[in-house]
């Protein structure tokens, strides 16, 4: 790399042009996955089958959603989770069903994991009445509060204090529940995160904060928007922190199980940096000029779904034909969901005024 002239004013973030010649640029460095097998993690063969089905569902759901979007069946933003499915799946299996989960706008996988049916999810994308949020939320605002999935939120970092507040209420009520707040690496530079970390440890909130570091906040590589390793931010607030391989569902499950136990027992916050990679652009409108095809291919070699599939076969838990059965079942389910969403009714126009206020006779300034 050419030596910069000392008198040149330069605000180029570190890392630009730092790649060694010929080396593939890397979005994130993945830590080694856990070596533990499912039994020593406390997972049964049935758990593994269910996890595989869940991860495969998230992927096929989104691949079909993408097709429908491209066909113009619905509008808005569409941020796909493809590549990151091990995180939602590993987490949901590790936490209790009544622990509170909240996330950002990349929320389809989380919703499906926490009981939004493919039909409810697809209908929401289509803006239809039977959608999980009655067509009021769309792609970025899936929610199913009866299952303690508090939703996807669209302001980068804005829901981090809210996740802290979910934990505050749990501590206040001494109900033994914890909260887990997920956000992307772009959110770590928001003041909301820093204010929340400070308060969360000051008040010892039973909260997990987890960044899904997929290497890019929209088009800006993590190393160009943050001056430190993200996990190090935990130290500044006296919080425990850990880096986890997010391309391996066992690693996520193991870490979440351990962290959740710690948080529940000690009532204190914990910060996880879960390293992962998204295969698609930030949203559908992203031409992805900031990364190379080679880089993407590197990460696809450690695909979380393929990884689990290989494990299932190597351990002789499922035969090829049984895996195919699961995949066919999921495919049918997703196609049914697309049909359902396509044929479902849009909300009545009068629904425009519903759900604004808690009371039955809300006031509107017309």
């Amino acid at each position, binding site marked *: 790399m050419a030596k910069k002239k000392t008198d040149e004013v330069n605000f180029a973030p570190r890392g630009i042009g730092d790649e060694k010649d010929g080396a593939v640029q890397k979005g994130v460095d993945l830590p080694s996955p856990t070596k533990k097998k499912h039994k020593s993690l406390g997972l049964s063969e049935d758990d593994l089958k269910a996890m595989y089905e869940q991860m495969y569902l998230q992927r096929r759901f989104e691949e079909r959603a993408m097709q429908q979007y491209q066909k113009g069946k619905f509008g808005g933003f569409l941020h796909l989770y493809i590549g990151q499915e091990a995180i939602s799946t590993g987490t949901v299996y590790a936490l209790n069903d009544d622990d*509170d989960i*909240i996330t950002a706008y990349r929320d389809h996988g989380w919703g499906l994991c926490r009981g939004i049916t493919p039909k409810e999810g697809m209908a929401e994308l289509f803006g239809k009445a039977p*959608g*999980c*949020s*009655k*067509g*009021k*939320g769309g792609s970025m*605002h899936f*929610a*199913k*509060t*009866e299952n303690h999935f*508090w*939703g996807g*939120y669209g*302001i980068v970092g*804005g*829901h*981090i*204090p*809210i*996740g*802290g*507040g*979910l*934990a*505050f*209420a*749990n501590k*206040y*009520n001494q109900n033994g529940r914890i*909260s887990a707040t997920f956000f992307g690496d772009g959110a770590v530079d928001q*003041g*909301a995160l820093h*204010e*929340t970390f*400070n*308060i969360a440890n*000051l*008040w010892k909130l039973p909260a997990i904060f987890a960044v899904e570091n997929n290497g890019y906040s929209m088009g800006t590589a993590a190393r160009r928007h943050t001056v430190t390793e993200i996990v190090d931010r935990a130290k500044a607030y006296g919080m425990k922190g850990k880096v986890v391989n997010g391309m391996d569902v066992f690693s996520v499950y193991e870490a979440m199980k351990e962290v959740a136990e710690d948080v529940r027992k000690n009532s204190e916050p914990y910060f996880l940096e879960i390293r992962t990679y998204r295969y698609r652009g930030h949203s559908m409108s992203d031409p992805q000029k900031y990364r190379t095809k080679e880089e993407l291919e590197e990460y696809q070699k450690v695909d979380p779904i393929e990884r689990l599939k290989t494990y299932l076969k190597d351990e002789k838990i499922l035969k090829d034909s049984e895996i195919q059965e699961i995949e066919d079942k999921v495919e049918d389910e997703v196609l049914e969901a697309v049909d359902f969403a396509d044929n479902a009714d849009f909300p009545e126009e009068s629904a425009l005024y*519903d*759900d*604004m*206020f*808690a*009371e039955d006779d809300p*006031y*509107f*300034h017309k």
Partner: protein
Amino acid sequence: MAELQFREAIKEAIDEEMAREEKVFIMGEEVAEYNGAYKATEGLLDKYGYKRVIDTPISELGFAGIGVGAAMNGLRPIVEFMTFNFAVLAADQIINHASKAGYMTGGQISMPIVFRGPNASAGQLGATHSVAYDSMYAHFPGLKVIYTSEPDDAKGLLKSAIRDDNPVLFMESEQMYGMKGEVSDEEDYIIPIGKGKIKREGSDVTVVAHGKMYHVAKQAAAQLEKDGVEVEIIDPRTVKPLDLPLIIESIKKTNRCVVVDEAHPFAGFAAEIGFLIQREAFDYLDAPVQRVTLPDVNAPFSKPLFDAWLPSAKNVIDAVNQVTYRN
């Protein structure tokens, strides 16, 4: 009737609601150990302890957002801002989250939260500590906005706000915390949100004024009475929802209206009231609606400039003279 300071009325409302409902708690800067920056929470820490009266860091976005999450998850937070001028740092939580979470999840989330604290200017605090925010928050759907003018209203309306299942912005005036007034000693005294009050009956002109401006209007009315002009003062008490029928009925009687507002003129409360009156009562008007607001200028420090900046009784009298064609 007991005579209470404004701050005592606020404290009574919080105290009574905390005693009634375990889920109600208060947090904010200096609310606990310090007994409240304006002593509106005096004694509450001793009574309810550190679980329910909580000092926060100077971190408005952070603690407002924790309040939002806590409200979603079943509690009923009262979030005190040391002034609404600082609450701008938490505007994301109020405007983008508290007001919208219920709607965008198809009604799955309810948001019983009160954000309260001093609004608008006190004496000579300079440009960053003198802004009235009630108009701004009223712009956004999903929020209820209250800016009270008297201790009695403050008590009854704050109790309603705490019981409301929606986000409510409850505004007080820094200059009015020491003001005394008769407060109902009725047990569990509640004033419904959205109901204004005719605070002075008159036949010649309707003056709509809320918050600190009610007192400016009252002063002007006393002066005008000497000149034989009978002013009717309507205090809407809640900016949103607004008791428009009460205002319209009054205008049908007086045929003239002046709106006095502590905010800036453009796209503000006074502009909205002016529009609504022309739409609902055009045929009853004998003069165009006038407004008295701050100028479209930031708050100055210097005393004479500050006095010239803040709406005064003289400004109101001038406006009344204009709509009654007396000058």
